[in-house]
């Protein structure tokens, strides 16, 4: 008999929730993570090596010397390290992105689950409906909001059906930047709402309230008031005594019996030793790029093109978010130094935009590290050096603010993860290769949203507005999703409506890969909610 009922690969958003739910349901769980369990000090506050500015490295993994990928652009192939552009990194540590994220906690809208029916499918796009509805996911959104911990105002979420229960915590008090943009939106007649955040606005879950520091997104919380899986569901899993957590452990592949049925996984431990371990059920939660890589690297004679890949869908339709925006210079300081910075959003343009497919949410920005401000946010007509540059920094760091937001990706089959047999990582495993771009309709929607962002900044009193519209590229990155889509038909999807891989009774996926489309919102609350639903289903059926 196996020592474990369930093995979960990846201790990030989806994997952390699955571990908690399954261990509490009485299952013996093995949770495997390739990264480390990072303390606040480990994450640090290095302004040049973090998950917001990865100039020379980053602070939440993956290790930059062990995990290459290749990127293919117009037939040219480049090998890239994790902190470099084009790699599409999220994070790799206990909690993964949730250890250092901005913690925006958005539900998708009902229309986001019905994109093909609502808009039709543009030529060349893999736009599709989800096999589940918003209503089916709503109870699990609620679980995520309560069990991980969200602050916000359910009354203000006018773009959504009524909530069954309010958020467990009230929104954070509004600061000058938020007030400025609320007033601007009011001028335009746009409804705004406090951004729901996975942050304690008041003490919650035996941890204190946020101290409103300036190093939120991209860093760990100094008082542990930011809620991820590392300080909630993973702790609950460990507290049962039924969950073993292995860190710095790299899963190589899924193992199968001679008939192709999944039996367990093979991993490399901290010392590089290869070990096989079996279980009844396997849950892949390695994130959209790495889950696809695992499926493809686990080909068997029964499934020579990779597990779950009968319909040639694994790795395709990689999605993320374009993030268009606009920056404004205000006559008075808009930054009062109160973090995290992002406070106020509008959902006026997520749907119902004439002649546009989908849309997106817009919100004010997190406090920018001064070096990010210097590198990315200065007006294009400002000299890059000299007294004028220094003066602008000095006079206007607190007078500049921006609006931006995630645009609903219109997916393309060609935006794709494959594996590269010629390039291996530190363990000798073929690496992920990324290729293709999003569908051109995404760019059109992003341009539309860029114009709305400019309008908002202007109406809020900016005396100068800048920012450029985006071009065509591959989306993915920290919001990566879509590489093992959910659907009823095995020919056009990878998992069924319970996130079980087609053709397998005991292989599930609980991470962003299963998203059919990725909404016009930051994705993590949907990943967390789906994982609650999937894990509950596994607990009831195994």
């Amino acid at each position, binding site marked *: 008999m196996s020592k474990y009922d369930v093995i979960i690969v990846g201790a990030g958003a989806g994997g952390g929730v699955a571990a908690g739910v399954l261990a509490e349901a009485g299952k013996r769980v093995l949770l495997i993570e390739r990264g480390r369990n990072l303390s606040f000090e480990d994450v*640090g506050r290095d*302004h040049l090596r973090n998950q917001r500015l990865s100039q020379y490295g980053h602070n939440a993994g993956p290790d930059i010397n062990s995990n290459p990928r290749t990127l293919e652009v117009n037939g040219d192939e480049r090998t890239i390290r994790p902190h470099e552009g084009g790699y599409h990194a999220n994070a790799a540590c206990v909690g993964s992105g949730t250890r250092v994220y901005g913690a925006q906690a958005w539900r998708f809208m009902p229309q986001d689950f019905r994109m093909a029916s609502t808009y039709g499918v543009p030529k060349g796009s893999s736009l599709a409906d989800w096999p589940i509805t918003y209503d089916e996911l709503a109870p699990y959104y609620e679980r995520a909001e309560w069990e991980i911990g969200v602050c916000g105002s359910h009354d203000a979420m006018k773009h959504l059906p009524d909530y069954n229960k309010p958020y467990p915590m009230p929104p954070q008090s509004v600061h000058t930047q938020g007030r400025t943009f609320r007033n601007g939106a009011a001028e335009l007649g746009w409804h705004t709402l406090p951004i729901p955040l996975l942050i304690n606005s008041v003490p919650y879950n035996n941890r204190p309230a946020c101290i409103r520091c300036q190093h939120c997104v991209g860093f760990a919380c100094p008082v542990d008031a930011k809620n991820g899986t590392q300080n909630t569901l993973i702790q609950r899993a460990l507290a049962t005594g039924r969950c073993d957590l292995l860190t710095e452990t790299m899963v190589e592949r899924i193992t199968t019996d001679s008939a192709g049925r999944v039996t367990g996984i093979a991993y490399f431990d901290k010392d590089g030793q290869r070990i096989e371990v079996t279980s009844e059920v396997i849950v892949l939660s390695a994130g959209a790029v790495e889950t696809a890589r695992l499926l493809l690297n686990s080909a068997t004679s029964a499934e020579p093109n990779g597990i779950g890949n009968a319909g040639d869908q694994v790795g395709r339709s990689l999605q993320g978010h374009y993030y268009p925006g606009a920056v404004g210079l205000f006559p008075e300081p808009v930054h009062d*130094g109160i973090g995290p910075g992002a406070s106020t959003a509008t959902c006026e343009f997520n749907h119902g935009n004439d002649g546009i497919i989908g849309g997106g949410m817009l919100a004010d920005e997190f406090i920018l590290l*001064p070096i990010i401000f210097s590198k990315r946010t200065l007006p294009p007509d400002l000299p*890059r050096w000299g007294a004028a540059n220094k003066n602008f920094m*000095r006079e206007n760091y607190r007078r500049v603010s921006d609006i931006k937001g995630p645009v609903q990706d219109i997916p393309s089959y060609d935006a794709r993860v494959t594996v590269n047999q010629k390039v291996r990582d530190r363990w000798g495993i073929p690496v992920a290769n990324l290729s293709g771009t999003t569908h051109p309709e995404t760019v059109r929607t992003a341009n539309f949203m860029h114009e709305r962002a400019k309008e908002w900044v202007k109406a809020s009193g900016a005396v100068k507005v800048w920012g450029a519209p985006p071009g065509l590229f591959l989306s993915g990155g920290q919001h990566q999703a879509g590489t093992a889509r959910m659907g009823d038909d095995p020919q056009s999807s990878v998992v069924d409506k319970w996130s079980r891989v087609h053709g397998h009774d005991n292989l599930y996926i609980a991470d962003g890969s299963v998203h059919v489309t990725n909404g016009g919102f930051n994705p993590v609350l949907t990943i967390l909610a789906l994982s609650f639903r999937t894990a509950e289903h596994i607990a009831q059926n195994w």
Partner: protein
Amino acid sequence: MLSAHQTEILRAAVNRIIPPDDFPGGWEGGVGDYLSRQFKGDLKDLLDTYRVGLDALDAESQAAIGTGFALANAEAQDSLLTQIEHGSVKTTWPIDPESFFSMMIDHSMEGFYSDPGNGGNRDQIAWKMIGFEVRG
């Protein structure tokens, strides 16, 4: 490392990229310390480029105004750097002058505005100047 002469040229250039006013110039604000640390770390492979580029900058200065760059006055240094920024140079550079200057700008900003843990931004002087506070 850089020679003493090359360091003087670098210092002069950094102090035109981030000139002193009632707040220190880039070099005194920590860019020099940042760079000497980074030349042993992430920028190790660029040390040669710096040597070549700084020598070329000095030669350019000699050719254009008859004096080494570090000895020129601020106004002359600025106009020379402006020329280089736009790629209009009198001498033959072994490396691309525009990209060399652009790189010096990037590294100067990193040394001045990033966290003191990276060796620059002495006593958080740049953060005090712009109003970036650190809590927690």
